[in-house]
């Protein structure tokens, strides 16, 4: 039998522009850049290419439930986007045999002003269902979602749990041969998560294929029978039984816990002072892999001066979501003023007494200025993982859909 998904040497290249301040490209910039190019021929150095996926190949047979595992930036989401035809690959070829549905987000296209009933139809159509198909499954969807009473209420009045349940109910009733799911189960309460996993298993029980990305290793092992590990855009472990894939993944994550910033070459700035390493410490100054929301977390930034007398040092750590959205910046300049001087090499510590981010993965950008001149800027210098914790000391965990940031910070220099 032919495999349902056949991926041959897929690569995806992104061009990263370094003028990060601009949220979008304006016509003026393009005109100016082109004009500059005429005056000074040569490649504009602001554009850098980045391979989110390189040379990925695999085959999935009908009925397999495959978990795609990997750290942030490993290319999992890009792979799913390429498979769901949202972005086109730069190279390679994919053959999909069967109707495909992808669920990269819960409630894509839900409109807050529309009622639950209206959104079921809208969302169903966006996911590729026909009107008649939605009509015939309408009652089933409503029953699964457990929001019968609020069917004629605009979803903007729904609680986040109800919203997720309704959205997932629609998606769960798609009947594709191939279902692609990206971490959407991270939201919603535990009971509903179980129900969803059960529903997805039902789907694959009838010979359907599932591709599933999650950081939740327990749900991966309960849902999937096979796993594949991606690392830096390449296949690190080809399709294997799920338990093997999970243990392989755990091994490489431990290995990568210490980031090697000193070896990064894709950095900018004068270079008089440079970051060499980043570590996450707990209150006892011991290195940790995962920060816990609400607990004391210390960011340790090792640096080294290159025959340079650093003065008026302003360092900052930008914390970004995986979608590139800036959550917050920890900066000594704002928190307590610049460091007047620094030893030739050493570490800067930024202490966050109650770590304010909710569970998830975050990317860090590191930047340092001396006397107002940028000396080092490392984007995506490290990834940190955060677990839920008792931030408010009330025993309640904040839902990930209610992210907010309240920061108290202390800095010191050694």
């Amino acid at each position: 039998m032919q495999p349902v998904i056949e991926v041959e040497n897929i690569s995806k290249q992104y061009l990263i522009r370094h003028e990060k301040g601009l949220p979008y490209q304006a016509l003026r910039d393009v005109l100016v850049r082109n004009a500059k190019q005429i005056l000074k021929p040569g490649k504009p150095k602001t554009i850098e290419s980045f391979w989110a996926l390189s040379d990925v190949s695999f085959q999935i047979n009908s009925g397999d439930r495959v978990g795609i595992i990997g750290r942030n930036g490993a290319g999992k989401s890009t792979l799913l986007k390429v498979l769901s035809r949202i972005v086109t690959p730069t190279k390679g070829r994919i053959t999909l045999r069967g109707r495909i549905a992808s669920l990269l987000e819960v409630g894509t296209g839900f409109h807050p002003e529309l009622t639950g009933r209206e959104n079921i139809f809208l969302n169903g159509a966006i996911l590729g269902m026909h009107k008649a198909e939605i009509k015939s499954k309408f009652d089933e969807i409503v029953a699964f979602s457990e929001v019968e009473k609020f069917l004629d209420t605009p979803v903007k009045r729904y609680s986040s749990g109800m919203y997720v349940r309704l959205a997932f109910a629609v998606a769960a009733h798609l009947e594709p041969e191939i279902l692609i799911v990206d971490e959407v189960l991270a939201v919603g309460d535990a009971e509903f998560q179980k129900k969803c996993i059960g529903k997805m298993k039902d789907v694959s029980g009838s010979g359907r294929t599932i591709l599933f990305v999650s950081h939740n290793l327990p749900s991966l092992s309960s849902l999937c029978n096979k796993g594949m590990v991606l690392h830096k855009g390449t296949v690190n472990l080809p399709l294997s039984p799920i338990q093997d894939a999970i243990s392989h993944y755990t091994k490489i994550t431990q290995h990568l816990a210490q980031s090697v910033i000193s070896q990064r070459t894709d950095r900018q700035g004068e270079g008089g002072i440079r970051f060499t390493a980043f570590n996450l410490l707990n209150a006892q100054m011991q290195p940790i892999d995962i920060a816990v929301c609400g607990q004391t977390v210390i960011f340790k930034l090792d640096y080294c001066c290159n025959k340079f007398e650093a003065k008026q040092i302003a360092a900052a750590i930008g914390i970004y979501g995986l979608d590139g959205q800036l959550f917050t910046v920890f900066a000594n300049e704002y928190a307590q003023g610049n460091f007047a001087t620094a030893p030739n090499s050493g570490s800067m510590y930024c202490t966050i007494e109650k770590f304010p981010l909710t569970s998830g993965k975050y990317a860090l950008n590191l930047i340092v200025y001396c006397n107002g001149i940028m000396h080092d800027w490392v984007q995506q210098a490290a990834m940190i993982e955060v677990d839920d914790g008792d931030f408010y000391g009330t025993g309640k965990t904040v839902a990930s859909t209610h992210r907010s940031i309240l920061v108290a910070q202390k800095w010191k220099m050694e």
Partner: protein
Amino acid sequence: MDKSIVIEPGNEAANYWKDIWHFRSLFYFLAWRDVLVRYKQTTIGIAWSIVRPLLTMLVMAGIGWIFNAPIPNGIPRLLWVCAATLPWQFFSSAFSESSGSLVANANLLTKVYFPRMIVPISSVIVCVFDFLISVSIMLVAMWYYQYMPALQIVWLPFFMVLLFIIALGSGLFIAALNVKYRDFRYVIPFIVQFGLYVSPISFSSTDVLQHAGIPSYIKLLYMLNPVVGVIDGFRWCIFGNISIQWTSVIISVICAFGILMLGIFNFRRMEKSFADVI
């Protein structure tokens, strides 16, 4: 859908029109969503579809009256202006809505696959809906003046389709560019405002085309605005016995198809990078 799908760079064109057919429900649902959402939490609701063209019409008629713009055959001025305001209002709203539609639906573009062209097309469909409602203004005005439309009225659907094509073509063209260059966000209102003054709404196109003081190349340039031909056509259909510049209608038809081709071509060319740059 048992057939296999092949994803390859440069292969995006395959199955495109078939996919549009497969997702045909989406035209309806996106348009339906926009119609439903448009007037939520407004007091007078759908009456806005009447009020906006009505006020535009009154102002334009007022301007024509002040400057004493000539009207052929004793046609009531309100009717004369109304016949131009309705198509213009459709064009301006269809053009601006569809131009901004991709950016407004950015969340969809980055999360699900469907042929992207559905988004701007369905926003034009919403404007057709508004247009049909606003036609009632014309009907009421005709009843008030006891004015019977001419027999040429049977040609009205032709001009309507022509206008639809112009609005869609230019909307597709700008919508795709707007994803990458948000400058168009500022250009669009300007085009719409500019168009309101240069299109023959409070006056007739013959005032421009037969004006002795206007050089002929300006007149040709004027006719290149495809909306001019359509408005002339609307008036001809409704009022019958008036002179019409057939050249400007022919130019409109040519321009309309040119714009549509250009719009589709440009859209398909830029489409594959939408999810990456939006």
